[in-house]
C-alpha cells in the first residue's frame, strides 16, 4: 500500500517536471519556423557603449545593421546606406541612406540616428578607433562625416560591433532600455547565460524574413553544443571545434558549412622587454613552431597554415610570394645561440646573463577552444629549442588587465583588429595603439601612408611591404588562418556561410 502511494507521488512529480520543461516561449510564433542556434559565449552588452565580445556579435548581426555590408565573399555592398562618395581625397565621406527603413519600434531610420550611433556614446569613438572632426546631418537621409585625415571610412562601416542603432533605445535620462535596430530580427527576451529569443521583423526593408523566431542558446562547452546538434535540440551550431568536423561530416543528418574566414590566430610578442626585445629570439620562435603540422594534425586540416603570413588569403591586398617560415629547429637554435642564449646548467632551458629563458604565454577565453590547444602545442615545440613557456589561461577582463600592466611575454590572439577584408589589422603593431607592444617608426609610417592613400596600386604595394616587414621583424608570429565552421541539421535550408567572422546571415534561412 505504502509503496503504491510512493509510485503515485513519483509519477505526479515526473509529470510536473515534464510540463515545466515544455513551457512555450512567451510569443505566439508559429511553431514550425523557429530556428534554434547554439552559441558559445554569453552576450556581454546590448548597447553600443561597449564592445560586444565573442559570440555576442553573431546575435547583434540579427538585430543591428551597418551602413555598408559585405556579401558572402567579402565584397562591399550597400547596407543601410544606398550609396556613398568621398570628397577631399577621402577626408570627407557622404552617405545616402535608404529611405524605406524603419527601426523595430517603428521610428524611421534618419541621418540623426546615424549621427547618434557614431557620437560620443559609442564605443568606437570612445576607444578612438574612429575619430571624426564633425558629423553633419545634411538632410533626413544624407549624412556627412569629416575625418581628421583621409581614410577608407566605408571599410570601417561594415563592422557589426559598430552598427546603426535607434536613439530611442535609450531613455530621456540616458538609460539603456533595450536593443532597437533595423535588422531582420527584433529583440524579444534574454535570459542571462541561457538564451536569447528574437522575433521576425515583419517590416524588414529587404526580402521577407522566412523564420518566425530565432532562439540563440548559450552553451559554453563545445562537446555539449555538438550533442545538442546531433540530438536535434538545436538546428544550427556555431563554433564547432576543428577536431569534430570529420565526425559531423560523417553524420547524414548534418551539413558542415566551412569557409576560410578573415580571422588569423597569432602569437603577439611583448617587444618592450627581454627576451622578445631581441628580434633574433622572435625569429627563433617563428622557426620553432610547425604551423603546417598544427593545422594538419591538431586541427585535422581545417584551416590554413599561416607560416607567419599576417593576413588570410581572402583579405584585400594579401600578398603572394611572401618569404614564409617553415619549422626549422636547427635555425631556431642557432639564432638563439647567436643571441647569447646557452644552456649552462644542463636543464635543457637556455640562459643568458644568469636569467633562464622563461616566458609567459597569455591565452584568453573568448573566441575559440583551439587557442588553448595551439598554445600548448607551441609550449611543447618551444621547449624543444630551450624555452620554458608558462601558459596562462585567463578570462577576458584579466587578460586586458595583465596586458596593460605588461606582465606577459606572448599573447595568443585570434582575428584581433580584423573586420571585413580591409587590412585594418596592421594597426595592431602601430606603436600608438595601446595593444601594440611594438615600436618601429618605419612601420608606423607605412601604416599611416597605407590608410591615407587613395591609389589602389599604391595601397597594394604599401600593404605588401607591411606584410614583408612583419615577416622580417616578427612583432607577432602568425599561426593559422581560421576556417569558419557552422554546422546545420538538414532541415535548415537556404543558409549560405559568409567569409566574414563573426557574422551570421539568417535572412534567407527557412526550415523544411
Amino acid at each position, binding site marked *: 500500500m505504502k509503496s503504491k502511494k510512493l509510485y503515485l507521488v513519483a509519477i505526479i512529480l515526473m509529470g510536473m517536471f515534464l510540463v515545466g520543461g515544455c513551457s512555450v516561449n512567451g510569443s505566439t510564433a508559429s511553431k514550425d519556423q523557429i530556428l534554434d542556434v547554439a552559441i558559445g559565449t554569453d552576450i556581454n552588452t546590448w548597447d553600443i557603449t561597449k564592445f560586444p565580445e565573442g559570440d555576442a556579435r553573431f546575435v547583434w548581426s540579427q538585430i543591428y545593421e551597418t551602413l555598408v555590408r559585405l556579401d558572402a565573399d567579402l565584397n562591399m555592398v550597400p547596407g543601410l546606406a544606398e550609396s556613398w562618395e568621398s570628397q577631399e581625397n577621402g577626408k570627407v565621406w557622404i552617405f545616402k541612406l535608404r529611405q524605406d527603413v524603419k527601426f523595430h519600434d517603428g521610428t524611421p531610420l534618419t541621418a540623426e540616428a546615424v549621427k547618434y550611433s557614431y557620437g560620443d556614446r559609442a564605443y568606437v569613438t570612445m576607444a578612438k578607433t574612429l575619430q571624426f572632426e564633425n558629423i553633419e546631418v545634411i538632410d533626413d537621409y544624407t549624412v556627412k562625416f569629416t575625418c581628421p585625415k583621409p581614410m577608407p571610412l566605408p571599410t570601417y562601416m561594415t563592422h557589426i560591433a559598430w552598427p546603426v542603432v535607434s536613439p530611442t533605445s535609450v531613455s530621456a535620462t540616458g538609460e539603456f532600455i533595450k536593443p532597437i535596430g533595423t535588422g531582420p530580427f527584433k529583440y524579444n527576451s534574454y535570459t542571462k547565460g541561457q538564451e536569447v529569443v528574437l522575433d521576425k521583423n515583419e517590416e524588414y526593408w529587404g526580402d521577407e524574413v522566412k523564420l518566425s523566431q530565432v532562439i540563440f542558446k548559450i552553451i559554453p*562547452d563545445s*562537446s555539449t553544443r555538438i550533442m545538442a546538434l546531433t540530438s536535434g535540440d538545436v538546428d544550427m551550431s556555431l563554433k564547432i571545434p576543428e*577536431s569534430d568536423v570529420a565526425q559531423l561530416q560523417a553524420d547524414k543528418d548534418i551539413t558542415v558549412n566551412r569557409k576560410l574566414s578573415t580571422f588569423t590566430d597569432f602569437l603577439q610578442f611583448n617587444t618592450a622587454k627581454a627576451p622578445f626585445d631581441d628580434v633574433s629570439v622572435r625569429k627563433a620562435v617563428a622557426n620553432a613552431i610547425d604551423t603546417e603540422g598544427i593545422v594538419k594534425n*591538431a586541427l585535422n586540416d581545417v584551416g590554413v597554415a599561416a607560416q607567419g603570413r599576417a593576413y588570410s588569403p581572402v583579405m584585400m591586398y594579401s600578398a603572394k610570394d611572401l618569404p614564409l617560415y617553415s619549422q626549422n629547429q636547427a635555425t631556431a637554435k642557432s639564432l638563439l645561440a647567436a643571441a647569447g642564449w646557452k644552456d649552462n646548467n644542463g636543464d635543457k632551458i637556455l640562459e643568458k646573463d644568469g636569467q633562464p629563458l622563461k616566458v609567459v604565454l597569455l591565452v584568453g577565453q573568448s573566441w575559440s577552444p583551439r587557442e588553448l*590547444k595551439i598554445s*600548448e602545442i607551441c609550449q611543447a615545440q618551444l621547449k624543444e629549442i630551450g624555452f620554458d613557456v*608558462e601558459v596562462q589561461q585567463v578570462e577576458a577582463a584579466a587578460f586586458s588587465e595583465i596586458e596593460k600592466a605588461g606582465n606577459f611575454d606572448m599573447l595568443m590572439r585570434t582575428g584581433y583588429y580584423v573586420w571585413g577584408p580591409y587590412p585594418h589589422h596592421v594597426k595592431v603593431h602601430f606603436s600608438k595603439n595601446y595593444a601594440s607592444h611594438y615600436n618601429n617608426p618605419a612601420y608606423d609610417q607605412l601604416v599611416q601612408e597605407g590608410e591615407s592613400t587613395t591609389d589602389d596600386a599604391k595601397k597594394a604595394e604599401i600593404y605588401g611591404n607591411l606584410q614583408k616587414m612583419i615577416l622580417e621583424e616578427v612583432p607577432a608570429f602568425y599561426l593559422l588562418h581560421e576556417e569558419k565552421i557552422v554546422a546545420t541539421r538538414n532541415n535548415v535550408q537556404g543558409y549560405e556561410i559568409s567569409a566574414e567572422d563573426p557574422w551570421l546571415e539568417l535572412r534567407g534561412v527557412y526550415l523544411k
Partner: protein
Amino acid sequence: MIRDILKNKMALSGLLIITMLILVALLAPVLAPHDPYEQLLEKALMAPCWDYPFGTDEYGRCVLSRIIFGTQTALFIGLSVTVVSAFVGVGIGLTAGFYGGRFDEFLMRIVDVFLAFPGLILALVVAGLLGPGLPNVIFALALVGWMGYARVVRGAVLAEKEKEFVETARSLGASDGYIIFLHLLPNIISPVIVMASIGIGQAILGAAALSFLGIGVQPPTAMWGLMLSYGKDYLQSAPYLTIFPGVIIMVTVLAFNFLGDGLRDVCDPRYGKVIEE
C-alpha cells in the same frame, strides 16, 4: 593489529592496490612506455593499440604514460593534503580538548565557521584566488580538510582526559605538553589514522575536481583530473581519453576508502569479539 588488517579482506585489497600505486609512482620513468610530455602531433587521437595500450590524446601523447606519471602527482597531493590537514586538525583538537573553557569554545566556533562553507566551493575560491600551482592546490584542499580531525580529536580528548592515567600523570608532576603528546595522543590516534586514510582518497578526488574545472595544477602536468577535462571534448570520438583516467581515479579513491573502512573495523574494540563469543 597488523594481523587483523591482513584478515580483513577489504582493508587487505585496499592495501594491495595502494602498494601497487606507490610502486607505479616510484617506478614511473621505468614503467611508462613513452615520454608523457612528448607531443607527436601526427599520432594524435589514436585508439588503443599495441604501441599505445590506452591510446593517445589530442596532442599525440601516450595516455598510459600520462596516467602512470599522474600517479606521482595524485599520491603527492593526496599525502601532503592529508598530512597538512591532519597536523593542523589534530593540533587544534588536542589543545582545544585539553584546555577546554573559552579557548576551546573559540577554536570550535572557528571550526564551525569553516564547516559552514561547502568544502569544494571554498577550495575552488581559494585555489582560484591564489592562482595556478601545485602548492596552492594543496593549501586550498588542506584548508577545507582539517576541521573533521579537530572535531574528532577534541571529542576523544574530552573523554580521555578524565581517565585515571591522566590524573596519575598529573599527580606525578607531568607537564601539559608531556601529557598531551605522550599520554593523550597515542590514545586518540587510531580514529585519526582511519580518517587520514579515507582523507587521502578524498584529497585526490578533490584535486581531480579542481583540475577538471581548470583551477590549480596547470597543463602540461600529467594529472588525472586534467586529462578528464581535456578528454571531455572528445567524449564521442575518443572515449578512451576519459574512460581510463576515470577508472584510475575511481580505483584509487576506492582503495583508500576500503583501507579506511577496514582500519575502522579493526580499530573498533568490538571487532572480532562478536565472532569469538
